[in-house]
Each structure stands twice: as structure tokens, then as C-alpha cells.
């Protein structure tokens, strides 16, 4: 379970959209293997019948009224954009149809 092959790491890097170099990939496999061994301990923790916890505090039903709030100006919205055209974010050609 704690074995992560090079192919598996490459697949994960693809899912995470990070283009790792071969050298990085090799290094990562070793490092991750070590980390995974230690975190695999979590499965020994005796969690039978324990409810998972995603929030420290039992808050529920937090919402806001359907009332408009000020938006950013288009200039503010586009201010950090690497490329802008016609008041829109210009992005390189997209391969996959949604």
C-alpha cells in the first residue's frame, strides 16, 4: 500500500497538472515512499466505528441572504492576468472539449 511506483507518481503529477522532469520524478518517488511509510501508520490507529471529522467545530447552516454586494471592477479583476483581450482573460488554446 505504501509503494508508489514511478508510473504512479507520473500519473499523479498528470492529475495535478505538474510537468515533472525525469530527475524530479525519480527524486520524488524516493521521498514520497519514505513519507508514505510513516503516514500509513494512520491505518493502525484503531478507527473502527469512528466518525470522520472534517470540522473542529459543529457549525451548521451558515448562509447569507440573496442580496447583491459590490463586485470588482473589470480592471481590478483582470489586474493580475498574464494576458487580456476584449476585457477577458486570454488563455492558450484549450485541447479538451468540456
Amino acid at each position, binding site marked *: 500500500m505504501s509503494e508508489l511506483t514511478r508510473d504512479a507518481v507520473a500519473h499523479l503529477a498528470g*492529475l495535478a497538472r505538474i510537468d515533472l522532469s525525469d530527475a524530479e520524478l525519480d527524486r520524488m518517488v524516493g521521498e514520497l515512499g519514505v513519507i508514505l511509510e510513516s503516514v500509513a501508520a494512520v491505518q493502525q490507529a484503531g478507527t473502527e466505528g469512528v466518525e470522520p471529522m472534517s470540522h473542529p467545530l459543529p457549525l451548521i447552516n*451558515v448562509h*447569507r441572504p440573496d442580496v447583491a454586494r459590490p*463586485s470588482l471592477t473589470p480592471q481590478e479583476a483582470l489586474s493580475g492576468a498574464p494576458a487580456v483581450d476584449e476585457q477577458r482573460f486570454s*488563455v492558450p488554446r484549450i485541447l479538451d472539449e*468540456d
Partner: protein
Amino acid sequence: MAQATTAEPVLTWAATNAAYDPVMGLEVHVELGTTTKMFCGCTTTFGAEPNTQVCPVCLGLPGALPVVNEIGVESAIRIGLALNCEIATWCRFARKNYFYPDMPKNFQTSQYDEPICFGGHLDVELDDGTVYRVEIERAHMEEDTGKSTHVGGATGRIHGATHSLVDYNRAGIPLIEIVTKPMVGAGERAPEIARAYVATLRDLLKALGVSDVRMEQGSMRCDVNLSLSPKGSDAFGTRSETKNVNSLRSVERAVRYEMTRHAAILSSGGRVVQETRHWHEDTGITTSGREKSDAEDYRYFPEPDLVPIAPSREWVEELRAALPEPPGQRRKRLQGEWGYSDLEMRDVVNAGLVDLIGETVAAGASASGARKWWSGEIARRANAEGSDVVTYAESLGVGPAHVAELESLVSGGRLNDAMARQVWDGVLAGEGRPAAVADARGLELVQDSGALEAAVDAVIAANPDVAQKVRDGKVQAAGALIGQVMKELKGQGDAAAARALILAKLT
């Protein structure tokens, strides 16, 4: 990824249905008509200048956090109730992780295994009166993406584009996704049933007031999942998912096409590829998009920036009690009140005239009179213009009040049908209200019995042979005499009264 530009082989419709049974799953996304987005206070008005309705939250800026729109939750619950669903006592949002430039966070805040509504049904009535029950798997809350325009390609589509321009105004608008359970047993009526389901759902959502459900504007979107299994087999086949189905007509055509395409593959011994396909309304085919077998692993996990939603049972019951009458039920009730036959009601429904007739009746007309005018005369004129009745009437500024007034002039004996049609011409030409037009054109039934009797006498005298036929028992011959009486009275005679008088004198 090669895009097929020529159609793939299809089997005939007959051969398809002889050998295979379809299983459909329809996913409908409804854009809510809330004032603000699902997780932030940006407005949602359609058609605004690009990137003028964005903020750190819906733009996915580092550090921004979502806060749930309470009307988004309320609408989800109302939709679930209208679909006879159970409403979760406790549910959460989840992150659906994938990368796409129109996704500001590269995850969609949605719901995964804890949807707010689940386990419902919608009864769909088909044209011939058959009812098909569509089982609803779930309805859940999520957010819409931004919109990309692809630049540089031939058709404005992704294929061949050099770059894209992204507008995030739409990102974050609340969506409710409604998912059916697999629809089985539809057989060759599958296309019809799919269309009817979407149409019925649309009417329901419209009646709830949660969305303007305009498929052409994208506020209601339908994805069609379809697979075939050989007749007699229980096993589900491999399914394809078809997107870009933007109208009721497309729903029906896409289901039909996919059935024949799958059939062609299966009958030649091939295997259907599990993939996403794109419907082309112009050519009537689907083309391959992405292979779904290399499906993204969405790595769902509960959204840590939001807390669970736990609608109280009191609130749910309040919402249930305030639901509007379901459209199907309302139609049955009105049919009874109006005394229409099934066929008459179906015609009225199919022409989209239920509301107009309802308003006309409310304005004082009889139900039969209202139907006669709207489904008859006005529909005829609308068709001649190539329009539908509702649009036609709207464009000319005429409505229920006009029809009711006209009908009352006829039923009150002031006008006969022929005269009414002339008055209507005047109304449509903008000459004014029916009574005013009748006055202006001097249209009025002659009620003077003296004039009527004089005319009848003159006609009988002028047509002794026809009169004799009537005396001899050929009552139908009176028709010619009636016609002449009307001519005498310049069309302003009461035909029924003339007939009665003629018969009285001759029989």
C-alpha cells in the same frame, strides 16, 4: 484527438428497435434565477459586459472563501419537493477536482454522496395520454463555470482555435443538477419520453419560479446518457454521454440518433466506447469528444470551507405547503372546469395556450368561446405569419381582455361570427378595442324583427322553387334562403333567427 467530420454508421430505426432496448439517463442542469451567485454576492444578470460581475470569490483569487446563498438552498429544496424527493436532514458540499480554464478554482463546489434531495419521481404524460414515471435519483446544488469563447478556429469551436477568451460572469451562478435513475422500458418511445420528461420538468420549474428555464439561453441544460442492451437481456450496455443538447427537439433527436448509432456498432460486433459526445443540431449527428474511460479521478472530498446544511423539518414543511399546484394537476383541474375533451385539452396544451385561456376565462369569456378564438381564429392567423400564438398575440398587443370582450359581443347578440372576424381584423390592425371597432365599422347585428321579417318575405317570394323544397320537407334547402337573407341585410342579420323565421313560415 481526431474529431469525426463525417457521420458514423447508424442502423435503421426499425432494426434498432427490433434488436435492442434502450436505457436512458437524463441529467438536467438548471440555472437558478437568484439575484446573486451561489457562494458570493455578485449579481447574475444575463448579458452583462465581460468580467463585470466577479469578485475574489467567484474569480478564485487566492484567499477568497465561499458563503452559501440561502435562496439557493431554498430553491433546491423546493425543486426536490416538487419532484417528490426526500430532503436530506444533513448534507454537505464537496469539491469536485479537475482542471479547466473556465473553472476559477480548478475545482467545482458541488455535492457528492450527500445530495440535498434524493429518491423522487416525476410522472410524464405523453401525447397519447400514456403516463411514464421517471424515477429521480437525486437533485443537488453546485455552481456554474465561466464562459470561454474560442478564437481562431473555423466555427468558433475548440477544434482549430488558437486561443480562448474567458469571461467569469457566469462562474458561481447557482446550478441545481437533477439526475434520473436509469429509464428503462421506454423502447422505441425513448426519444419521445426523453423530450416529454424535459418539457414536463421545464414546466414544473417554471411554475416554481426558480429559473426562467430557457434552453436556448442555457439556463436549462440537458445531458443525455444512453446505452442499448440486446432484447431480453438484463445487463446494461456501455453508455455514451451526449452534451450540447440545447432544445426539446434536440433531446428527442439526440436520443434517437444515439440509439441508432449504438445499434450499428453492436450489430456489427463492435463495442461502444464510453465517451462524451457532442450533439450537432444542424447535421443531426453526434461527434466524439473525450474518452470517458480515461475519466478524470475527481478526488471528491467534503468542502472544508463550508459547513453542513441541515434543513429543519419545519422549514421543509413550510416550503412544501407553499408549493404551487403542479402543472399536470392544474391542467387536469382546468380541463374539468372548462369541459374540454381530452383531445381539445391536449391541443390547447401543445399550443401553449393554457395560461392565455385561463386569463380569458377570468376576464369573463366562456371556456369554449376562449378556446374557439385562441385555438381557432388567432392560431390560424399566427400560423399564417409563421409565428406561435403567444408570440403573435404579444407582438400585436392583444390578449385575454380583447378576446373576452369580443366573445361577449357575440354571445350578447351584437355580432355574428362573420362580423366578429371582421372586428378582429380591425383589432389586430390596431384600430382599438373590439366594441370600438364594431362601432367604427358600423357592425351590428340587425335585431329589428321587422326588417328581418321583411327580408325573409322578400327572399321567399324571390325563390319560389327553393321555398317549395323546404315546404316539401327538405329543410337543408333553407340554407340557400338564409344566405340570401343575409345578403339582403348586408351580412348583419342574425342567421339563426333568419333560419327560425324561414322554417316557421314554410313548415
